[in-house]
């Protein structure tokens, strides 16, 4: 059959597409490059991966969408540990646990300690703070004085962890709150606009789907403070699927979960676990890496699935 080779070729390309899309950033302009193209041209993938984003591990979840979330997290960790050049940092963008139970935090900490990466930085998801944040802050909040939001520098990049899952208002989106926005203003004051910024928080900081609360009501005030920077990368979790947006110098990205997928915005009664075919599940779970190349200054986001 004449169409067989071309069909096979098409499937191969689709396979690459499923593995991820790479974003190269140069001078604040972000250009998507397919992994197929990147694989064909090795020079397109430059720079050591600076960090890795892992999200929504939901340790404690045991329903049919994934009865063994510890196993899929272990598979994810094995994927990271097998990378030829491992990033120096891991950012966990929340929902470490499913029900904020101490034993769930214990299991998550034990599994995550298997990562062959030296630093783990976290921000809580709403599943981690169902007790109003006491257990999470006890375990992860000490460096930030129990606030949960903080910043640090690594390899010339300024990282900012924000918390948008406390103090929900009825019917509302995620919220940062006035205190946190004032802290952010102080954190960014006097900082060079040429320094790359990475902001990470659990719930999307831009509104993806308001009826399901997929957004952060007062994030506009944070964006106003970030807008003068030449390269801002905003990383979120929460929705268990990849959604991207580019607006000026700001790139927005949500990560996959390592536990279970969720429906696309507005499909079904609400943002609950999505049951998919067992063979399909590993293709819907994964992580994101981000690398920067110094000459010329450029950043790349790459998504990996565990299968």
């Amino acid at each position, binding site marked *: 059959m004449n169409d067989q080779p071309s069909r096979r070729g098409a499937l191969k390309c689709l396979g690459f597409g499923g593995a991820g899309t790479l974003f190269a950033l140069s001078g604040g302009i972000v250009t998507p490059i397919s992994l197929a193209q990147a694989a064909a041209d090795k020079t397109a993938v430059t720079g050591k991966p600076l960090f890795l984003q892992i999200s929504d591990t939901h340790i404690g979840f045991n329903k*049919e969408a994934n009865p063994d979330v510890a196993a899929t997290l272990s598979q994810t960790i094995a994927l990271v540990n097998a990378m030829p050049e491992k990033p120096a940092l891991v950012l966990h963008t929340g929902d470490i646990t*499913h029900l904020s139970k101490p034993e769930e935090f214990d299991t998550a900490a034990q599994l995550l300690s298997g990562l062959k990466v030296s630093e783990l930085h976290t921000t809580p998801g709403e599943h981690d703070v*169902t007790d*109003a944040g006491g257990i999470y802050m006890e375990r992860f909040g000490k460096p930030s004085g129990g606030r949960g939001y903080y910043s640090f520098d690594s390899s010339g990049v300024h990282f900012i962890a924000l918390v948008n899952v406390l103090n*929900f208002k*009825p*019917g509302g989106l995620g919220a940062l709150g006035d205190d946190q926005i004032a802290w952010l203003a102080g954190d960014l004051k006097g900082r060079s606009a040429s320094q790359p910024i990475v902001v990470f928080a659990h719930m999307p900081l831009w509104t993806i789907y308001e009826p399901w609360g997929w957004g952060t009501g007062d994030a506009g005030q944070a964006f106003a403070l970030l807008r003068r920077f030449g390269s801002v990368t905003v990383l979120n979790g929460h929705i268990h699927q990849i959604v991207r947006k580019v607006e000026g110098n700001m790139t927005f990205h949500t990560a996959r979960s390592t536990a279970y997928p969720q429906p696309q915005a507005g499909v079904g009664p609400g*943002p609950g676990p999505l049951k998919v075919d067992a063979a399909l599940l590993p293709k819907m779970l994964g992580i994101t890496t981000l690398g920067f190349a110094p000459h010329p200054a450029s950043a790349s986001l790459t998504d990996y699935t565990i299968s």
Partner: protein
Amino acid sequence: MISATVKHAAALLALAPLRAFAGDADIVMKNFDFSPMAITVAHGTTVVWKNLDGEPHTVVGLAGAFRSAALDQNDTFKFKFDKPGVYKFLCSIHPKMTGTITVR
């Protein structure tokens, strides 16, 4: 006879907002909503919430009077309302979910 049956049915309907769903709960969480969203009870009543969704929910009083842990599927939460008043609550995981308890 017919009118007696109608009266009996009406009496049952009047009770319907309480014990309407699972039999062991006054308010259930189902498909990302509290149901019913509003009930009225006499003071001294213990109200029972039950989560029927596969996704966890919480019951958090806005004025801070009560707060459940994360409720997994089929978990329940109880709170006794001693003082009359209007008590609004939400799910802190899905704040779109809201409800009201009026205590007489």
